[in-house]
């Protein structure tokens, strides 16, 4: 079984700063394997080990996604090999463009049975790349996946739904987005990091792939900081918890919220 994990090398918005003009400054935010992607890698690794398959890491982005540190961070987490589409033309690429490039890379890899992704990327968090990727491939997409196995030639997928869980059977290839708590990812040790340097990596530019042209232009006309409510930031002394509680209840009552 050939399993691709589409992962992202991205910074955390928690470490970015936003200017008064709403422009996001990422210069102090270090990139890493996107927060939830290790869960997807772990699910894929366990499935491959159970079925005698192969796990291929796939990412697309500007050249920085192919830096030595980025490669090792990815390959030390359980991939057998990686395909990296590293092209500065992808700087600031939107969801659809990124998904189209990933889909083209999946076709380039060939005979892929399953694509697994994380729940959402840490920097954009739209949860749309997996579903657009599935659309590009014409495969079914399933999110919130908590477990996956192969039984009688079918993919058996468990997922969370509103108010419960569901078991699905899928007959062909599919794109699955792992729930954030689907598995506890292994932490790479020194041996994994050393081995990562020896794993095969295929680096591609976008032009090497058959990517359909996008027909939409999106131009930013204005940026701003979110209009946050002004908060009172009134601190209540808690030396005496009972007195603090009484003071808070009084304050909430006079503010009309109790």
């Amino acid at each position, binding site marked *: 079984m050939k399993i691709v994990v589409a992962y992202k090398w991205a910074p955390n*918005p*928690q470490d970015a700063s*936003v200017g008064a003009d*709403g*422009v*996001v400054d990422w210069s102090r935010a270090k990139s890493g394997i996107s927060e939830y992607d290790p869960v997807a890698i772990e699910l894929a690794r366990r499935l491959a080990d159970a079925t005698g398959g192969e796990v291929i890491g796939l990412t697309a982005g500007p050249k920085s996604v192919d830096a030595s540190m980025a490669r090792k961070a990815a390959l030390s987490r359980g991939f057998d090999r990686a395909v990296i589409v590293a092209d500065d033309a992808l700087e600031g690429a*939107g*969801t*659809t463009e990124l998904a189209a490039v990933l889909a083209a890379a999946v076709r380039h890899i060939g005979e892929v049975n399953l694509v697994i992704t994380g729940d959402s990327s840490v920097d*954009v*968090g*739209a949860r*749309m790349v*997996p*579903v*657009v*990727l*599935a*659309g590009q491939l*014409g495969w*079914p*997409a*399933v999110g*919130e996946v908590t477990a996956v196995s192969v039984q009688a030639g079918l993919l058996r997928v468990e997922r969370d*739904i*509103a*108010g419960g869980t*569901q*078991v*699905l*059977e899928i007959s062909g290839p*599919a794109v699955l987005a792992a729930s954030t*708590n689907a598995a506890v990812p292994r932490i790479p040790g020194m041996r994994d990091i050393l081995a990562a340097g020896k794993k095969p990596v295929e680096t591609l530019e976008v032009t090497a792939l058959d990517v359909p042209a*996008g027909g*939409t232009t*999106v131009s*930013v*006309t204005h*940026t*701003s*900081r*979110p209009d946050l*409510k002004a*908060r*009172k*930031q*009134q*601190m*209540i002394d*808690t030396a005496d*918890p*009972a007195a*603090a*509680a009484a003071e*808070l*209840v009084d304050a*909430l009552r006079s*503010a009309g*919220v*109790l």
Partner: protein
Amino acid sequence: MSTWIVVAGDPAIGNLVETARALGGQVTAAVVGPRAVADTIAAGGVDRVVWLGDPGQAPVEAYASAVADAVGAAGGAVLGASRPGDRVLLGAVAARLQAAVLTEASSVSAEGDGLVVTRTICGGIAEETVMVAGPVALVLDGGPVPAASGAAPVEEVTASPLGITVVETNASSFEQVDLSAAARVVGIGRGLKAQGDLAMIEALAEASKAELGCSRPVAEGLNWLGKDRYIGVSGQHIAPDLYFAVGISGQLQHMVGVRGAKTIVAINSDPNALVFKEADYGLVGDLYQIVPALTEALK
């Protein structure tokens, strides 16, 4: 301009209908789900419904390609609610049209042949306004079920589903809750040391007539509460009159979910916790002392 709305079995699309109507032109809904859902939407203010049939044993996701076929090459905007099934249908349409995907939009308007969209980006740290020319897929808050206001024709099309079936559905052991409707919410975070201590937090919620919510790890890592109680960037976004953030550090991923609250009270042992910057009232101290005292004071 012609606007499409994709619907994955849940007729709560009032906000989408309103947005589509404001763009002008014809509004068509592509509906996967029981006939009753198609009828509710046909009565809810659209011009036309394309019904792809009752999925039966297939999940709505099985109809993603069929929905993309139905929408076809119809330019303009395609709208979908921010729910898992709806996102899958919208993703397939976006792929077919090579349409730009924009999420978290707070306002959408037509300008010339294009659209002007204002939205939150990067997990809520900034907002941008963009001009869009060409096909676009918009993910919006679904809003309520639209009120009956007309009777659009329902056109049934035969759709062939992708090879995916539901073999088992199990109800969650957690009681379901709709936090978005709660006037008061007590949110609990990693400051709570043990699952058994939830009783103390539930007592506070009861005394303050609040629903219980939590940060992500409490629902998704520790599994102490149901997922529908998780408040944050990928969970519930709430706007109650009063929010108690108890043992919550105030990471961005959580706070974007509660910024609509009228009043925020923060209780945390760390005086430098980020949560105090976004609170109206801050209490620095041990929640195990403050929460029972507060519960008592509220009685």
